[in-house]
């Protein structure tokens, strides 16, 4: 039986020294060692793919530092271009929001807080942080999700916080799983970090899950807020196989959760 030589690159334009972003077509470095003509045709193929499927181009998202040691110790901060779910008590969530405002001020970026329970209280926030915050007060979680959708499509803000912790649980549960997947798809196209604060873990498609746990007494009311925050414990679960904003759902190597517990006890 004689082998038939098939030229897989026949018909492709030649001489297109285009480098496609990672994630498109063949893995980077694949073309090393190939004949020059083949490499050029490979570049042409990559260019065709990029033109035909521009959405497939994924940019590395980067990291937004939080200043919260348990979270920053795992990946350096919040993943950009990814949906992070933060669940836990409502007090811990409020504390996290205030801490993120400080982070936004420190990183000199802009943020939005979509408040589904209309519970945000700016008391104690630094004025410099508030000038960088867009607040959207919503009637219910469904409206809040629509507002997040608009903000992600806008793409101007580095951080979008969706606070569902003060909303009734039954209303949060009405948010269909497809909505979360849609938000994840949207945020992938941006360099924003999206954080959904929920009373219980319920966000499908989240790239990272953070569970906060803290129990306070009234003695906390006499302590610096910064100290209270830094002593809060957290468990971080980055999705296994999801490199920072670069891999889609259902990664071939099997997506799952990687448990990394970072806790600082008081």
């Amino acid at each position, binding site marked *: 039986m004689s082998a038939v030589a098939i030229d897989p690159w026949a018909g492709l334009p030649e001489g297109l020294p285009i480098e496609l972003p990672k994630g498109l077509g063949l893995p980077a470095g694949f073309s090393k060692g190939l004949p020059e003509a083949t490499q050029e045709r490979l570049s042409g193929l990559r260019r065709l793919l990029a033109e035909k499927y521009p959405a497939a181009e994924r940019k590395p998202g980067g990291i937004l530092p939080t200043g919260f040691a348990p979270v920053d110790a795992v990946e350096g901060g919040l993943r950009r271009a990814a949906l992070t779910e933060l669940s836990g008590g409502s007090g811990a969530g409020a504390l996290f929001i205030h801490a993120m405002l400080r982070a936004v001020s420190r990183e000199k970026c802009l943020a939005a807080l979509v408040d589904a329970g209309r519970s945000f209280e700016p008391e104690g926030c630094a004025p410099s942080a508030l000038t960088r915050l867009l607040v959207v007060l919503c009637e219910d979680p469904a409206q809040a999700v629509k507002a997040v959708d608009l903000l992600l499509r806008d793409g101007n803000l580095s951080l979008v916080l969706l606070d569902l912790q003060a909303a009734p649980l039954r209303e949060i549960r009405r948010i269909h799983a497809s909505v979360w997947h849609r938000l994840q798809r949207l945020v992938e196209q941006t360099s924003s970090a999206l954080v959904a604060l929920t009373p219980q873990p319920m966000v499908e498609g989240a790239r990272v899950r953070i569970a906060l746990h803290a129990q*306070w007494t009234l003695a906390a009311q006499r302590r610096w807020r910064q100290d*209270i925050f830094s002593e809060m414990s957290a468990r971080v679960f980055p999705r*296994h196989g999801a490199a920072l904003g670069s891999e889609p759902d259902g990664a071939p190597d099997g997506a799952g959760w990687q448990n990394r517990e970072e806790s600082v006890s008081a």
Partner: protein
Amino acid sequence: MFAAVLLPNFRLQAALRFREELREKPVAISDEDEAKTGLLEVSEAAERMGVRPGISSPQALARCPQLTLLARSRPQEQSAQAALLEIATAFSPAIEATADGYCTVSLQASRDQDWPALAGRMVEALAALRLSAQVGIGPNADLAFLAARNARPMLVVQSPGAFLANLAIHELDPPPELLAVLRDWGIHHLGQLTSLPRGELMDRLGPEAARLWERAAGQTERPLRLVRPAEEFVEAYEFEHEVDTVEPVLFLLRRFLDQLALRLENVGRVAGRMTLTLALANGGAHERGFTVPSPTASVDVLFRILHTHLEGLRLEHCATGLQLRIEPALAERQQFQLFESPLRDPNRFGETLGRLAALVGAEQVGAVEALDTHQPGILRLQPPRFHEITRAAPLADDLAVGLPLRRYRPAVSAQVHLVQHRLISIVSEKARGTIREALGPFRASGGWWESDRWATEEWDIALENGGLYRLARAGNEWRVEGSYNLPAAAGREACQNLIPLPLADSKSPPG
């Protein structure tokens, strides 16, 4: 040299600027005094069908049943005149608004001596604004005007004598009596007139004839009455029928913006603010102003701002007219700083804010406004000014104390049981149980110098179940203002639930 820019059939052109479908059809313009004046202007197609200016509408319709009769629109004429003057200003600062649809430009200081090319650029610039112009260039203003009247579409008078010699006398619009006498004498062209001795002509026919002779000889010099066109960028349209859908309005707005963007570009400006006015069938008007976050002349950006507003607009009456006014501004030059992250696209952000306001209400979206009061519970939002953040304020130490509050809006009324001024228990929709510990009262008051004085006493309380709340009393009324932390069960349950919860597309995390 002088240039005369003439828009023939000016009223008709102004009325047809946004009705291209009628440009090749028989159209006539009339106004409210039509009974006295007859039709004002008619299109070429109408003229070919025998319709002439000055005849009445019934006569015109008898000659041309397909004739479209349009009412004169003064707002559109003003827009066209403004556009004409703006274009003229782009060629020279010394311009005269000689008449409607006619302006004279002094080119004495012009460096460009290629007059035909200059006239061509004027014609092209006006054509881009949907105005058909005739441009004449001559050594004085009157000669330039005569050249413009005979231009197709431009004419440069290099040799005044030769140009004037063959012009008919009526081109100078002499008094009818004088014209009749000259015709009786057999004088029909300007060349024939200037061959007569000026002095004797004046002796026989008076000073009017002498002035006519000077004009015929191309010897008149008059100073221009210079004007500076107002920077008013307005386009308007009056619908023939009442409009009850948004599509025709959007269609026209797009064309308005095309024109206004060109006009802005001509004067080196961009749009800083837009005002949209819809005249309504009940005689009222809907007016809305839009500040352009990052002033621009981009038609797409400006159109999106208007579109966002109109798609959520509901009016009780149909629209009968439309006006768009743009306030010009200087283009911003923004350079992104290395370590700053200002808005990448302020206009897009402005549009998003508009959509958010339509979704949740204008007062529910914005940046937190710093208020000059200590009254608790007041949260007022104002339009954010992110695009103005150029340098961050120095980051002060975080001096906040205690847990942040999650405020109940509105506050929840409560019944509190006291024993010897000690808080013992609470019953409310949000918090219920025995009060284990309380901090307070923290008293605050203000506004005593005004009618809306306020005073409150606040406690931070811890219940037996672990919940932390803020309690307030105003008079004899107790309210739960918010929570610092809900009972422990909720938070612990959240962490415990996290581990076994499977995801649809992933494995369970290891315990």
